[in-house]
Protein backbone atom coordinates (compact mmCIF):
# COMPACT_ATOMS: atom_id res chain seq x y z
CA UNK A 1 0.00 0.00 0.00
CA UNK A 2 1.49 3.35 -0.90
CA UNK A 3 1.32 6.28 1.45
CA UNK A 4 -1.25 8.00 -0.71
CA UNK A 5 -3.95 5.42 -0.21
CA UNK A 6 -2.90 5.05 3.41
CA UNK A 7 -3.46 8.78 3.89
CA UNK A 8 -6.81 8.65 2.20
CA UNK A 9 -8.00 5.92 4.51
CA UNK A 10 -6.74 7.77 7.53
CA UNK A 11 -8.00 11.15 6.40
CA UNK A 12 -11.50 9.99 5.56
CA UNK A 13 -12.00 8.97 9.19
CA UNK A 14 -12.17 12.61 10.26
CA UNK A 15 -13.94 15.79 9.26
CA UNK A 16 -12.70 19.17 8.09
CA UNK A 17 -12.62 20.80 11.51
CA UNK A 18 -10.62 17.93 12.94
CA UNK A 19 -8.02 18.37 10.23
CA UNK A 20 -7.84 22.11 10.69
CA UNK A 21 -6.96 21.56 14.33
CA UNK A 22 -4.61 18.74 13.46
CA UNK A 23 -2.74 20.88 10.94
CA UNK A 24 -2.73 23.88 13.29
CA UNK A 25 -1.26 21.86 16.10
CA UNK A 26 1.47 20.46 13.84
CA UNK A 27 2.38 24.02 12.84
CA UNK A 28 2.19 25.17 16.47
CA UNK A 29 4.54 22.35 17.43
CA UNK A 30 6.92 23.42 14.69
CA UNK A 31 6.80 27.05 15.83
CA UNK A 32 7.50 26.08 19.40
CA UNK A 33 10.51 24.07 18.25
CA UNK A 34 11.71 27.16 16.41
CA UNK A 35 11.16 29.37 19.44
CA UNK A 36 13.09 27.01 21.67
CA UNK A 37 16.12 27.36 19.44
CA UNK A 38 15.93 31.10 19.10
CA UNK A 39 17.85 32.89 21.86
CA UNK A 40 16.00 36.12 21.10
CA UNK A 41 12.69 34.46 21.87
CA UNK A 42 14.08 33.00 25.06
CA UNK A 43 15.12 36.49 26.06
CA UNK A 44 11.70 37.97 25.28
CA UNK A 45 9.82 35.19 27.03
CA UNK A 46 11.94 34.55 30.06
CA UNK A 47 14.55 37.18 30.81
CA UNK A 48 12.73 40.34 29.82
CA UNK A 49 9.62 39.74 31.96
CA UNK A 50 11.83 39.15 35.00
CA UNK A 51 13.81 42.31 34.27
CA UNK A 52 10.62 44.32 33.80
CA UNK A 53 9.12 43.18 37.07
CA UNK A 54 12.30 43.82 39.02
CA UNK A 55 13.06 47.09 37.29
CA UNK A 56 9.64 48.63 37.76
CA UNK A 57 9.25 47.29 41.25
CA UNK A 58 12.58 48.47 42.57
CA UNK A 59 13.29 51.55 40.49
CA UNK A 60 9.84 53.11 40.52
CA UNK A 61 8.61 51.11 43.49
CA UNK A 62 8.31 53.99 45.87
CA UNK A 63 8.45 56.90 43.48
CA UNK A 64 4.89 56.88 42.20
CA UNK A 65 2.05 57.50 44.58
CA UNK A 66 -0.99 55.39 43.93
CA UNK A 67 -2.82 55.91 47.19
CA UNK A 68 -2.47 53.79 50.24
CA UNK A 69 -1.64 50.48 48.60
CA UNK A 70 1.83 49.47 47.48
CA UNK A 71 2.90 50.42 43.98
CA UNK A 72 4.17 46.90 43.41
CA UNK A 73 0.76 45.30 43.64
CA UNK A 74 -0.59 48.11 41.52
CA UNK A 75 2.12 47.62 38.97
CA UNK A 76 2.37 43.90 38.48
CA UNK A 77 -0.94 43.41 36.64
CA UNK A 78 0.13 46.33 34.42
CA UNK A 79 3.38 44.60 33.55
CA UNK A 80 1.52 41.35 32.88
CA UNK A 81 -0.72 43.10 30.41
CA UNK A 82 2.07 45.01 28.73
CA UNK A 83 4.18 41.91 28.26
CA UNK A 84 1.28 39.85 26.96
CA UNK A 85 0.34 42.63 24.54
CA UNK A 86 3.70 42.14 22.86
CA UNK A 87 2.58 38.68 21.76
CA UNK A 88 1.08 40.61 18.87
CA UNK A 89 4.54 41.49 17.62
CA UNK A 90 5.59 37.86 17.67
CA UNK A 91 2.72 36.91 15.38
CA UNK A 92 3.57 39.78 13.02
CA UNK A 93 7.20 38.77 12.72
CA UNK A 94 6.65 35.00 12.58
CA UNK A 95 3.96 35.08 9.91
CA UNK A 96 5.80 37.58 7.78
CA UNK A 97 8.92 35.41 7.88
CA UNK A 98 6.91 32.37 6.83
CA UNK A 99 5.25 34.20 3.97
CA UNK A 100 8.60 35.39 2.69
CA UNK A 101 10.29 32.02 2.86
CA UNK A 102 9.94 29.09 0.48
CA UNK A 103 8.28 26.98 3.17
CA UNK A 104 4.87 28.41 2.35
CA UNK A 105 5.11 26.90 -1.15
CA UNK A 106 5.83 23.57 0.45
CA UNK A 107 2.77 23.89 2.70
CA UNK A 108 0.65 24.87 -0.27
CA UNK A 109 1.70 21.80 -2.18
CA UNK A 110 0.40 19.55 0.61
CA UNK A 111 -3.20 18.46 1.06
CA UNK A 112 -3.18 20.37 4.38
CA UNK A 113 -5.51 23.22 5.30
CA UNK A 114 -3.14 26.19 4.98
CA UNK A 115 -5.20 28.23 7.44
CA UNK A 116 -3.42 25.99 9.92
CA UNK A 117 -0.29 28.07 9.34
CA UNK A 118 -2.11 31.12 10.68
CA UNK A 119 -3.87 29.33 13.51
CA UNK A 120 -0.75 27.37 14.46
CA UNK A 121 1.26 30.58 14.79
CA UNK A 122 -1.33 32.02 17.16
CA UNK A 123 -1.60 28.81 19.17
CA UNK A 124 2.18 28.74 19.61
CA UNK A 125 2.10 32.36 20.73
CA UNK A 126 -0.58 31.43 23.24
CA UNK A 127 1.73 28.80 24.70
CA UNK A 128 4.46 31.43 24.91
CA UNK A 129 2.07 33.70 26.80
CA UNK A 130 1.37 30.91 29.30
CA UNK A 131 5.10 30.48 29.92
CA UNK A 132 5.68 34.22 30.21
CA UNK A 133 2.79 34.65 32.65
CA UNK A 134 4.07 31.80 34.75
CA UNK A 135 7.55 33.27 34.99
CA UNK A 136 6.29 36.76 35.71
CA UNK A 137 3.97 35.48 38.41
CA UNK A 138 6.79 33.64 40.13
CA UNK A 139 9.01 36.71 39.98
CA UNK A 140 6.17 38.83 41.31
CA UNK A 141 5.51 36.44 44.16
CA UNK A 142 9.20 36.44 45.01
CA UNK A 143 9.22 40.21 45.52
CA UNK A 144 6.09 40.33 47.61
CA UNK A 145 3.17 40.49 45.18
CA UNK A 146 0.22 38.51 46.51
CA UNK A 147 -2.98 37.17 44.97
CA UNK A 148 -5.67 38.15 47.39
CA UNK A 149 -8.86 38.02 45.38
CA UNK A 150 -9.52 34.31 45.74
CA UNK A 151 -8.65 31.30 43.60
CA UNK A 152 -11.52 31.49 41.12
CA UNK A 153 -10.92 35.17 40.47
CA UNK A 154 -7.23 34.56 39.91
CA UNK A 155 -7.95 31.82 37.37
CA UNK A 156 -10.37 34.16 35.66
CA UNK A 157 -7.70 36.87 35.57
CA UNK A 158 -5.19 34.53 33.91
CA UNK A 159 -7.78 33.41 31.38
CA UNK A 160 -8.57 37.02 30.55
CA UNK A 161 -4.85 37.73 30.08
CA UNK A 162 -4.47 34.77 27.73
CA UNK A 163 -7.57 35.75 25.76
CA UNK A 164 -6.12 39.24 25.56
CA UNK A 165 -2.82 37.88 24.18
CA UNK A 166 -4.77 35.83 21.66
CA UNK A 167 -6.72 38.85 20.41
CA UNK A 168 -3.53 40.95 20.20
CA UNK A 169 -1.94 38.17 18.15
CA UNK A 170 -4.67 38.58 15.54
CA UNK A 171 -3.89 42.27 15.21
CA UNK A 172 -0.22 41.31 14.90
CA UNK A 173 -1.08 38.68 12.30
CA UNK A 174 -2.93 41.25 10.24
CA UNK A 175 0.07 43.58 10.39
CA UNK A 176 2.54 40.81 9.58
CA UNK A 177 0.52 39.81 6.54
CA UNK A 178 0.14 43.40 5.32
CA UNK A 179 3.78 44.49 5.20
CA UNK A 180 6.41 43.41 2.75
CA UNK A 181 9.52 42.52 4.72
CA UNK A 182 10.42 41.00 8.10
CA UNK A 183 12.18 44.22 9.10
CA UNK A 184 9.04 46.26 8.54
CA UNK A 185 6.99 43.58 10.26
CA UNK A 186 9.19 43.83 13.30
CA UNK A 187 9.02 47.62 13.47
CA UNK A 188 5.33 47.84 12.66
CA UNK A 189 4.55 44.94 14.96
CA UNK A 190 5.98 46.79 17.95
CA UNK A 191 5.37 50.43 17.11
CA UNK A 192 1.63 50.61 17.79
CA UNK A 193 2.00 48.86 21.12
CA UNK A 194 4.04 51.55 22.84
CA UNK A 195 1.52 54.39 22.82
CA UNK A 196 -1.21 51.89 23.59
CA UNK A 197 0.48 50.50 26.68
CA UNK A 198 1.83 53.79 27.99
CA UNK A 199 -1.36 55.76 27.44
CA UNK A 200 -3.17 53.53 29.87
CA UNK A 201 -3.44 52.90 33.56
CA UNK A 202 -0.74 50.21 33.39
CA UNK A 203 1.89 52.30 35.15
CA UNK A 204 0.09 55.36 36.44
CA UNK A 205 -3.49 56.01 37.48
CA UNK A 206 -5.43 57.62 34.62
CA UNK A 207 -6.47 60.50 36.87
CA UNK A 208 -2.93 61.86 36.66
CA UNK A 209 -3.18 62.36 32.89
CA UNK A 210 -4.20 65.63 31.22
CA UNK A 211 -7.88 65.57 30.19
CA UNK A 212 -7.38 65.11 26.47
CA UNK A 213 -5.23 62.02 27.09
CA UNK A 214 -7.43 60.85 29.86
CA UNK A 215 -10.35 60.11 27.58
CA UNK A 216 -8.16 57.95 25.35
CA UNK A 217 -6.62 56.20 28.36
CA UNK A 218 -9.97 55.53 29.98
CA UNK A 219 -11.34 53.78 26.93
CA UNK A 220 -8.09 52.09 25.98
CA UNK A 221 -8.62 48.29 26.07
CA UNK A 222 -5.33 48.01 27.93
CA UNK A 223 -6.79 50.14 30.72
CA UNK A 224 -9.84 47.90 30.95
CA UNK A 225 -7.91 44.69 31.19
CA UNK A 226 -5.39 46.14 33.63
CA UNK A 227 -8.24 47.34 35.84
CA UNK A 228 -10.01 44.01 35.50
CA UNK A 229 -6.96 41.96 36.43
CA UNK A 230 -6.09 44.29 39.31
CA UNK A 231 -9.55 43.76 40.66
CA UNK A 232 -9.50 39.99 40.12
CA UNK A 233 -6.11 39.64 41.79
CA UNK A 234 -7.54 41.47 44.78
CA UNK A 235 -5.96 44.89 44.46
CA UNK A 236 -8.26 47.38 46.15
CA UNK A 237 -9.51 49.85 43.55
CA UNK A 238 -11.38 52.97 44.44
CA UNK A 239 -13.56 54.08 41.57
CA UNK A 240 -14.71 57.63 41.47
CA UNK A 241 -18.53 57.86 41.09
CA UNK A 242 -18.08 60.00 37.96
CA UNK A 243 -15.70 57.52 36.30
CA UNK A 244 -16.77 56.30 32.84
CA UNK A 245 -18.42 52.92 32.24
CA UNK A 246 -15.10 51.38 31.18
CA UNK A 247 -13.69 51.95 34.66
CA UNK A 248 -16.89 51.19 36.54
CA UNK A 249 -17.19 47.81 34.81
CA UNK A 250 -13.72 46.84 33.66
CA UNK A 251 -14.41 43.10 33.31
CA UNK A 252 -17.39 43.53 31.02
CA UNK A 253 -15.58 46.23 29.06
CA UNK A 254 -12.58 43.93 28.66
CA UNK A 255 -14.70 41.06 27.42
CA UNK A 256 -16.42 43.35 24.94
CA UNK A 257 -13.06 44.61 23.72
CA UNK A 258 -11.64 41.10 23.32
CA UNK A 259 -14.68 39.92 21.39
CA UNK A 260 -14.66 43.00 19.16
CA UNK A 261 -10.94 42.86 18.43
CA UNK A 262 -10.98 39.14 17.68
CA UNK A 263 -14.15 39.43 15.61
CA UNK A 264 -12.54 42.12 13.47
CA UNK A 265 -8.96 40.95 13.17
CA UNK A 266 -9.35 37.18 12.98
CA UNK A 267 -11.32 37.28 9.72
CA UNK A 268 -9.19 40.16 8.46
CA UNK A 269 -5.98 38.21 9.03
CA UNK A 270 -7.64 35.18 7.46
CA UNK A 271 -8.53 37.20 4.41
CA UNK A 272 -5.02 38.65 4.10
CA UNK A 273 -3.59 35.19 4.56
CA UNK A 274 -5.73 33.65 1.85
CA UNK A 275 -4.89 36.51 -0.47
CA UNK A 276 -1.18 36.11 0.15
CA UNK A 277 -1.28 32.37 -0.37
CA UNK A 278 -3.66 32.32 -3.30
CA UNK A 279 -2.23 31.93 -6.72
Amino acid at each position, binding site marked *: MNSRSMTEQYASKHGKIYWLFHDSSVIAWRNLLRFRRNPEVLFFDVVQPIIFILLFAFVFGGAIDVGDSSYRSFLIPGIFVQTIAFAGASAAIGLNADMNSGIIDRFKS*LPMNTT*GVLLGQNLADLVRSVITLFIMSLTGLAIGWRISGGFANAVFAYLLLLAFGFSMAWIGSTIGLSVSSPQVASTAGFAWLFPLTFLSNAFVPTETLPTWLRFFAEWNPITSIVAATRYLFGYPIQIAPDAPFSLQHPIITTIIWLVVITAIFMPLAGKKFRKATSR
Partner: protein
Amino acid sequence: MSIAIEANNLVKKYGEVTALDGLSLQVEEGTVFGLLGPNGAGKTTAVRVLTTLLTPDSGSATVAGVDVINDPEHAREIMGLSGQNASVDENLTGIENLVMLGRLFRLPKKEAVMKANDLLERFTLTDASKRIVKTYSGGMRRRLDLAASLIANPNILFLDEPTTGLDPRSRLMMWDVIQNLVNEGTTVLLTTQYLEEADQLANKIAVIDKGKVIAQGTADELKTQVGGERIDVVVAQAQASQAAVALQSMASGKVVVEGEHVQAPVSGGGVKVVEAVRALDMAKIEIKEIQLRRPTLDDVFLSLTGHHAEEIKVEDETVATKKGRK
Protein backbone atom coordinates in the same frame (compact mmCIF):
# COMPACT_ATOMS: atom_id res chain seq x y z
CA MET B 1 2.93 5.99 -24.41
CA SER B 2 0.79 8.34 -22.38
CA ILE B 3 1.42 11.98 -21.66
CA ALA B 4 2.31 12.82 -18.04
CA ILE B 5 2.64 16.58 -18.32
CA GLU B 6 1.11 18.82 -20.92
CA ALA B 7 1.09 22.59 -21.26
CA ASN B 8 -0.79 24.46 -23.96
CA ASN B 9 -0.10 28.06 -24.80
CA LEU B 10 0.59 29.21 -21.26
CA VAL B 11 0.76 32.98 -20.85
CA LYS B 12 1.73 34.79 -17.66
CA LYS B 13 2.46 38.49 -17.45
CA TYR B 14 3.89 40.47 -14.56
CA GLY B 15 3.02 44.01 -15.46
CA GLU B 16 5.28 44.82 -18.40
CA VAL B 17 7.19 41.57 -18.20
CA THR B 18 5.88 38.60 -20.13
CA ALA B 19 7.22 35.67 -18.15
CA LEU B 20 5.41 33.04 -20.22
CA ASP B 21 4.60 33.84 -23.80
CA GLY B 22 2.57 30.94 -25.13
CA LEU B 23 4.60 28.11 -23.68
CA SER B 24 3.60 24.61 -24.79
CA LEU B 25 5.20 21.30 -23.97
CA GLN B 26 4.48 17.61 -23.62
CA VAL B 27 6.27 15.15 -21.38
CA GLU B 28 5.86 11.44 -21.84
CA GLU B 29 5.32 9.25 -18.86
CA GLY B 30 8.46 7.79 -17.31
CA THR B 31 10.82 10.17 -19.09
CA VAL B 32 12.95 13.11 -18.04
CA PHE B 33 12.20 16.39 -19.67
CA GLY B 34 14.75 19.19 -19.47
CA LEU B 35 13.63 22.78 -19.62
CA LEU B 36 16.77 24.61 -20.62
CA GLY B 37 17.05 28.36 -20.52
CA PRO B 38 19.04 31.30 -19.18
CA ASN B 39 18.14 33.27 -16.09
CA GLY B 40 14.81 35.02 -16.57
CA ALA B 41 13.67 32.76 -19.41
CA GLY B 42 10.53 31.79 -17.51
CA LYS B 43 11.53 28.38 -16.17
CA THR B 44 10.43 29.00 -12.60
CA THR B 45 7.21 30.61 -13.73
CA ALA B 46 6.46 27.58 -15.91
CA VAL B 47 7.14 25.20 -13.02
CA ARG B 48 5.02 27.24 -10.63
CA VAL B 49 2.10 27.20 -13.03
CA LEU B 50 2.41 23.47 -13.63
CA THR B 51 2.57 22.79 -9.89
CA THR B 52 -0.56 24.91 -9.17
CA LEU B 53 1.33 27.59 -7.24
CA LEU B 54 0.52 30.21 -9.84
CA THR B 55 -2.48 30.77 -12.09
CA PRO B 56 -1.60 31.65 -15.68
CA ASP B 57 -3.34 34.52 -17.50
CA SER B 58 -4.35 32.09 -20.20
CA GLY B 59 -3.59 28.65 -21.53
CA SER B 60 -4.13 25.23 -20.02
CA ALA B 61 -2.08 22.52 -18.41
CA THR B 62 -2.57 19.00 -17.14
CA VAL B 63 -0.57 16.54 -15.07
CA ALA B 64 -1.53 12.89 -15.50
CA GLY B 65 -4.64 14.18 -17.22
CA VAL B 66 -5.70 16.35 -14.26
CA ASP B 67 -6.29 20.01 -15.00
CA VAL B 68 -3.89 22.01 -12.80
CA ILE B 69 -5.84 25.24 -13.17
CA ASN B 70 -9.35 24.00 -12.47
CA ASP B 71 -8.56 21.09 -10.19
CA PRO B 72 -5.41 22.14 -8.29
CA GLU B 73 -6.20 20.12 -5.18
CA HIS B 74 -6.38 16.89 -7.07
CA ALA B 75 -3.36 17.79 -9.18
CA ARG B 76 -1.25 18.45 -6.07
CA GLU B 77 -1.78 14.90 -4.93
CA ILE B 78 -0.08 13.53 -8.03
CA MET B 79 3.09 15.57 -8.13
CA GLY B 80 6.03 16.69 -6.07
CA LEU B 81 8.04 19.89 -6.37
CA SER B 82 11.52 20.81 -5.32
CA GLY B 83 11.62 24.53 -5.96
CA GLN B 84 14.52 26.77 -6.94
CA ASN B 85 15.01 27.88 -3.35
CA ALA B 86 14.97 24.97 -0.96
CA SER B 87 11.67 25.19 0.89
CA VAL B 88 12.49 23.55 4.17
CA ASP B 89 12.48 25.09 7.63
CA GLU B 90 15.97 26.29 8.46
CA ASN B 91 15.36 26.20 12.18
CA LEU B 92 14.25 22.60 12.34
CA THR B 93 16.40 19.49 12.04
CA GLY B 94 16.24 17.30 8.96
CA ILE B 95 14.07 14.71 10.67
CA GLU B 96 11.78 17.33 12.21
CA ASN B 97 11.20 18.85 8.79
CA LEU B 98 10.22 15.56 7.22
CA VAL B 99 8.07 14.43 10.14
CA MET B 100 6.26 17.76 10.12
CA LEU B 101 5.58 17.49 6.39
CA GLY B 102 4.54 13.87 6.75
CA ARG B 103 2.07 14.87 9.47
CA LEU B 104 0.73 17.68 7.29
CA PHE B 105 0.43 15.14 4.53
CA ARG B 106 -1.79 13.47 7.10
CA LEU B 107 0.18 10.37 7.68
CA PRO B 108 -0.36 8.91 11.12
CA LYS B 109 2.49 9.84 13.46
CA LYS B 110 4.23 6.47 13.36
CA GLU B 111 4.15 6.30 9.59
CA ALA B 112 5.39 9.87 9.31
CA VAL B 113 8.45 9.03 11.39
CA MET B 114 9.10 5.84 9.45
CA LYS B 115 8.77 7.60 6.13
CA ALA B 116 11.07 10.41 7.29
CA ASN B 117 13.75 7.94 8.35
CA ASP B 118 13.47 6.03 5.07
CA LEU B 119 13.87 9.19 3.04
CA LEU B 120 16.81 10.45 5.11
CA GLU B 121 18.57 7.16 4.62
CA ARG B 122 17.86 7.13 0.94
CA PHE B 123 19.40 10.57 0.50
CA THR B 124 22.36 9.81 2.79
CA LEU B 125 21.24 12.34 5.36
CA THR B 126 20.85 9.92 8.28
CA ASP B 127 23.99 11.20 10.01
CA ALA B 128 22.79 14.79 9.75
CA SER B 129 19.17 14.04 10.58
CA LYS B 130 19.35 15.56 14.05
CA ARG B 131 21.19 18.68 12.97
CA ILE B 132 19.47 21.98 12.32
CA VAL B 133 19.09 22.61 8.60
CA LYS B 134 20.90 25.94 8.94
CA THR B 135 24.11 23.97 9.41
CA TYR B 136 23.59 21.93 6.22
CA SER B 137 25.66 22.43 3.08
CA GLY B 138 23.91 23.52 -0.11
CA GLY B 139 23.93 19.98 -1.43
CA MET B 140 22.46 18.53 1.76
CA ARG B 141 19.74 21.16 1.84
CA ARG B 142 18.87 20.40 -1.75
CA ARG B 143 18.66 16.68 -1.02
CA LEU B 144 16.48 17.30 2.01
CA ASP B 145 14.19 19.42 -0.11
CA LEU B 146 13.99 16.67 -2.68
CA ALA B 147 13.26 14.18 0.10
CA ALA B 148 10.49 16.49 1.30
CA SER B 149 8.92 16.50 -2.14
CA LEU B 150 8.84 12.69 -2.11
CA ILE B 151 6.77 12.32 1.05
CA ALA B 152 3.67 11.95 -1.07
CA ASN B 153 5.25 9.28 -3.32
CA PRO B 154 4.54 11.40 -6.39
CA ASN B 155 4.62 9.84 -9.83
CA ILE B 156 5.52 13.17 -11.36
CA LEU B 157 8.31 15.32 -10.03
CA PHE B 158 9.27 18.92 -10.82
CA LEU B 159 12.81 20.01 -10.06
CA ASP B 160 13.60 23.68 -10.53
CA GLU B 161 17.34 24.11 -11.06
CA PRO B 162 18.20 21.19 -8.78
CA THR B 163 21.96 21.69 -9.03
CA THR B 164 22.41 25.44 -9.37
CA GLY B 165 24.91 26.65 -6.82
CA LEU B 166 26.19 23.19 -5.95
CA ASP B 167 29.82 22.18 -6.04
CA PRO B 168 30.77 19.54 -8.66
CA ARG B 169 30.69 16.68 -6.17
CA SER B 170 27.24 17.54 -4.86
CA ARG B 171 26.08 17.99 -8.42
CA LEU B 172 27.17 14.49 -9.37
CA MET B 173 25.46 13.14 -6.26
CA MET B 174 22.26 14.97 -7.19
CA TRP B 175 22.39 13.57 -10.72
CA ASP B 176 22.68 10.12 -9.21
CA VAL B 177 19.68 10.68 -6.97
CA ILE B 178 17.61 11.94 -9.88
CA GLN B 179 18.69 9.05 -12.08
CA ASN B 180 17.57 6.58 -9.41
CA LEU B 181 14.16 8.18 -9.19
CA VAL B 182 13.79 7.94 -12.93
CA ASN B 183 14.82 4.30 -12.91
CA GLU B 184 11.98 3.68 -10.49
CA GLY B 185 9.56 5.08 -13.01
CA THR B 186 9.06 8.67 -11.88
CA THR B 187 8.39 11.22 -14.60
CA VAL B 188 10.68 14.21 -14.07
CA LEU B 189 10.57 17.72 -15.43
CA LEU B 190 13.72 19.58 -14.49
CA THR B 191 14.91 23.04 -15.34
CA THR B 192 18.52 23.96 -15.78
CA GLN B 193 20.86 26.54 -17.19
CA TYR B 194 23.42 23.90 -18.11
CA LEU B 195 23.30 22.15 -21.45
CA GLU B 196 25.55 19.50 -20.00
CA GLU B 197 23.07 18.72 -17.24
CA ALA B 198 20.14 18.47 -19.62
CA ASP B 199 22.28 16.29 -21.85
CA GLN B 200 23.19 14.03 -18.93
CA LEU B 201 19.71 13.58 -17.48
CA ALA B 202 17.01 14.42 -19.98
CA ASN B 203 15.49 12.26 -22.69
CA LYS B 204 14.08 15.33 -24.28
CA ILE B 205 15.05 18.98 -24.02
CA ALA B 206 13.12 22.15 -24.68
CA VAL B 207 15.12 25.35 -24.95
CA ILE B 208 13.15 28.33 -23.73
CA ASP B 209 13.75 32.00 -24.19
CA LYS B 210 11.51 34.87 -23.10
CA GLY B 211 8.75 32.48 -22.07
CA LYS B 212 8.65 30.53 -25.32
CA VAL B 213 10.03 27.22 -26.51
CA ILE B 214 12.52 28.03 -29.27
CA ALA B 215 13.84 24.55 -29.92
CA GLN B 216 12.97 21.06 -28.87
CA GLY B 217 14.34 17.57 -29.28
CA THR B 218 16.68 14.99 -27.86
CA ALA B 219 20.08 16.14 -26.69
CA ASP B 220 21.61 14.74 -29.87
CA GLU B 221 19.12 16.46 -32.12
CA LEU B 222 19.78 19.74 -30.39
CA LYS B 223 23.51 19.33 -30.63
CA THR B 224 23.23 18.59 -34.31
CA GLN B 225 21.11 21.68 -34.69
CA VAL B 226 23.71 23.63 -32.77
CA GLY B 227 26.51 21.99 -34.68
CA GLY B 228 28.38 19.82 -32.20
CA GLU B 229 31.48 21.14 -30.47
CA ARG B 230 33.09 24.50 -30.77
CA ILE B 231 36.52 25.56 -31.88
CA ASP B 232 37.45 28.88 -30.33
CA VAL B 233 40.32 30.68 -31.96
CA VAL B 234 41.90 33.93 -30.91
CA VAL B 235 43.67 35.87 -33.68
CA ALA B 236 44.67 39.46 -34.30
CA GLN B 237 41.50 41.51 -34.60
CA ALA B 238 42.38 42.70 -38.08
CA GLN B 239 42.57 39.12 -39.30
CA ALA B 240 39.45 37.86 -37.59
CA SER B 241 37.04 38.02 -40.51
CA GLN B 242 39.67 36.48 -42.76
CA ALA B 243 40.01 33.65 -40.25
CA ALA B 244 36.25 33.14 -40.29
CA VAL B 245 36.31 32.66 -44.04
CA ALA B 246 39.18 30.21 -43.73
CA LEU B 247 37.31 28.15 -41.14
CA GLN B 248 33.87 28.22 -42.72
CA SER B 249 34.53 25.33 -45.14
CA MET B 250 35.28 22.90 -42.32
CA ALA B 251 32.61 24.17 -39.92
CA SER B 252 29.26 22.45 -39.39
CA GLY B 253 27.44 25.74 -38.96
CA LYS B 254 27.90 29.46 -39.21
CA VAL B 255 31.26 30.78 -37.97
CA VAL B 256 30.85 33.72 -35.62
CA VAL B 257 33.30 36.58 -35.11
CA GLU B 258 33.44 38.72 -32.01
CA GLY B 259 36.43 41.04 -31.76
CA GLU B 260 39.49 38.86 -31.85
CA HIS B 261 37.49 35.70 -31.08
CA VAL B 262 36.42 33.43 -33.89
CA GLN B 263 34.06 30.61 -33.07
CA ALA B 264 33.41 27.67 -35.38
CA PRO B 265 30.90 24.91 -34.69
CA VAL B 266 32.39 21.57 -35.72
CA SER B 267 31.59 17.91 -35.47
CA GLY B 268 34.32 15.31 -35.43
CA GLY B 269 36.37 16.14 -32.34
CA GLY B 270 40.16 16.46 -32.09
CA VAL B 271 40.98 16.05 -35.81
CA LYS B 272 39.05 19.21 -36.44
CA VAL B 273 41.56 21.19 -34.41
CA VAL B 274 44.33 19.94 -36.65
CA GLU B 275 42.27 20.86 -39.71
CA ALA B 276 41.60 24.30 -38.31
CA VAL B 277 45.26 24.94 -37.58
CA ARG B 278 46.13 23.85 -41.12
CA ALA B 279 43.45 26.04 -42.69
CA LEU B 280 44.54 29.09 -40.73
CA ASP B 281 48.18 28.41 -41.48
CA MET B 282 47.41 28.25 -45.19
CA ALA B 283 45.67 31.60 -44.93
CA LYS B 284 48.77 32.94 -43.14
CA ILE B 285 46.89 33.82 -40.02
CA GLU B 286 48.72 33.69 -36.73
CA ILE B 287 46.90 31.76 -34.00
CA LYS B 288 47.18 33.27 -30.54
CA GLU B 289 45.05 30.65 -28.90
CA ILE B 290 42.95 27.70 -29.98
CA GLN B 291 40.70 25.33 -28.12
CA LEU B 292 38.03 22.70 -28.68
CA ARG B 293 35.11 22.66 -26.26
CA ARG B 294 31.62 21.32 -25.81
CA PRO B 295 28.74 23.61 -26.67
CA THR B 296 27.12 25.53 -23.81
CA LEU B 297 23.69 26.99 -23.40
CA ASP B 298 25.12 30.22 -24.72
CA ASP B 299 26.17 28.49 -27.95
CA VAL B 300 22.70 27.01 -28.29
CA PHE B 301 21.32 30.48 -28.00
CA LEU B 302 23.77 31.98 -30.36
CA SER B 303 22.92 29.48 -33.07
CA LEU B 304 19.18 29.44 -32.45
CA THR B 305 18.52 33.13 -31.95
CA GLY B 306 21.64 34.86 -33.17
CA HIS B 307 22.06 36.52 -29.78
CA HIS B 308 23.71 35.50 -26.54
CA ALA B 309 21.76 34.09 -23.65
CA GLU B 310 20.76 37.36 -22.04
CA GLU B 311 22.28 38.44 -18.81
CA ILE B 312 19.77 39.03 -16.06
CA LYS B 313 18.99 42.62 -15.47
CA VAL B 314 19.49 43.72 -11.89
CA GLU B 315 15.89 44.78 -11.44
CA ASP B 316 14.69 41.41 -12.68
CA GLU B 317 16.63 39.71 -9.99
CA THR B 318 15.22 41.76 -7.15
CA VAL B 319 11.78 41.06 -8.46
CA ALA B 320 12.52 37.38 -8.74
CA THR B 321 13.57 37.12 -5.10
CA LYS B 322 10.23 38.49 -4.04
CA LYS B 323 8.38 35.75 -5.81
CA GLY B 324 7.29 34.11 -2.57
CA ARG B 325 4.78 36.91 -2.15
CA LYS B 326 2.64 38.44 -4.73
